[in-house]
């Protein structure tokens, strides 16, 4: 049911004319994905998804939508002039889905995660700071570069 709601709101994201409605549908999709994470015994990932994606990124989306004058674009006729590349991309993605479905569990050679949800936070912390320390630092450096880039672009004088 969660995945059904997620799919439905995903469709709503792309079909609504009003961008605020699209953003709200995207929020609903992200909340359903967080619920799916919960069902996969990963409560930490679900909580962090809600904090960062919904509470941070979607707020940013809504900020930008509010700051831009959108009444003119709402009255425009909806058109779709790129239907051919769109159909090709959708066929490619559909082929990917079908191949994973047909292959089943053999597509993912890693062992399934332990289904004990009390350990998720501890295990994420342990693995993140021991095995994946280098990607962790690289990711934080990436975010730092993004922040500096945003500040440089937004300042009037350097």
């Amino acid at each position, binding site marked *: 049911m969660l995945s059904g709601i997620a799919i439905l709101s995903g469709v709503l994201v792309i079909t609504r004319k009003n961008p605020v*409605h699209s953003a709200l549908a995207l929020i609903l999709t992200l909340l359903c994905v967080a619920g799916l994470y919960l069902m996969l015994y990963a*409560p930490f990932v679900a909580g962090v998804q*809600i904090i960062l994606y919904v*509470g941070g990124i979607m707020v940013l989306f809504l*900020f930008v939508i*509010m700051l831009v004058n959108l009444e003119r674009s709402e009255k425009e006729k909806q058109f779709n002039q790129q239907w051919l590349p769109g159909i090709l991309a959708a066929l490619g993605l559909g082929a990917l889905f079908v191949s994973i479905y047909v292959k089943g569990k053999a597509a993912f050679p890693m062992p399934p995660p332990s289904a004990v949800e009390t350990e998720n*936070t501890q295990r994420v912390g342990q693995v993140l700071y021991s095995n994946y320390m280098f990607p962790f630092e690289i990711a934080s450096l990436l975010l730092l570069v993004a922040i500096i880039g945003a500040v440089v672009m937004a300042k009037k004088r350097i």
Partner: protein
Amino acid sequence: MPGWITNYVNDPRQLTPGQYGSPFWALVYILVVFGGVSLAVVCMNWLERKILAHMQVRLGPMRVGPHGLLQPIADALKLILKEDIVPEGADSFVFLLAPVIILLAVFSVYCVIPFGPTHAITDMNIGILFMLGVSSLGVLGIVMAGWASNSHYPLIGALRSSAQMVSYEIAMGLAVVSAVLMTSLNDSGTGTLSMIDIVKAQNEQHIWFVFKFFPLGLIAFFIFAVAMVAETNRAPFDLPEAESELTAGFHTEYSGLRWSLFMLGEYAAMIAVSSIAITLWLGGWMRPFPNALSGPTWALAFSLFPALTFFGLAGMTFYSTMRMPKHTFFRIQTMGLGAFGAVLALVGLILLIPPVRDRVQDVYWFVAKIAVFLYLYIWYRGTFPRYRFDQLMKVGWKVLLPMGIGVLMLTGIVGLRTEIWGFLQRLVHV
């Protein structure tokens, strides 16, 4: 008594409804918490006006009931009976949805608040993470409310309010993480994100986290206290809803019952973030000095506090009954006030009965600490001038955020000092 009631109440394992797996008891807890919060909001309404008034050397509402005690009921009636206006160009779906989202976000936080070692609706093992995440959903509701009103005052108010809330969420998160770090110093060696286990960790370490690693716990608590006032858009951070600046900000266009939903959400959010602060730093449901002053006599002395509180309140009510003017106009009010005092004394007497007295301890201390925090909120409102918006953002980013990072790092270093010292010794000896 039916079997299912005695089975749950007398279960020796002492579980929350979530762990016990019973949706019925979870529903009972939810209704009790919801009723309690609504009652608290009603009391807060009256208390805020009276306390602010007394701080400003005036009297506050005195007309509606004796000493204005029926004022919240009059306010509620007025708001219910007002005309419900939806602005003309407003996006009606989003306009109607916004207060609902704010209330959803705020009341979902109550699912994990521990009023006692087993008195939480459910105890998730990511309790703190859940609370932080859900309270950031409230920002969405405010943004939607401002946008959907289709007028520039609410839009600017919503933008300012959401920018403020997002900025102070970061400082809040850092302070919370430094408190969670302190939970890992107990015997088992692992920290926890679950609210009940955080209070139990404070119990095991025999110290409230606000006093731990002095002054680090205190600074972290201070950061959280300032950030939580900014999160709930309360004075002195209430520029987005200040009346002289923005004509009530993002809820300008809401009238009647919808506006009261916003107010309910604001007071409920105040209580929710206060209870987060109490759980993380002030020892949750524990009475003061549970380990230093332990023993049956001290336990008995502290267990009389609830009854004494109510007797004190009843005494004050009777005193003000004596001081009512002796005019026939005030006869009904005097009788009403006397009846109110009698009800308070009766509740105090009920709290003296030993079975009730033992069960009500945890909830009482938790609620008492929340009451202290709410009084502090009202005190801040009456004392501090309002921050201008750029000053507000400067405090959030340039003052609280570095302080939060510093406290986090220092807490980590001090917490690991034995390991770091051993590491340095090995380094020197090699």
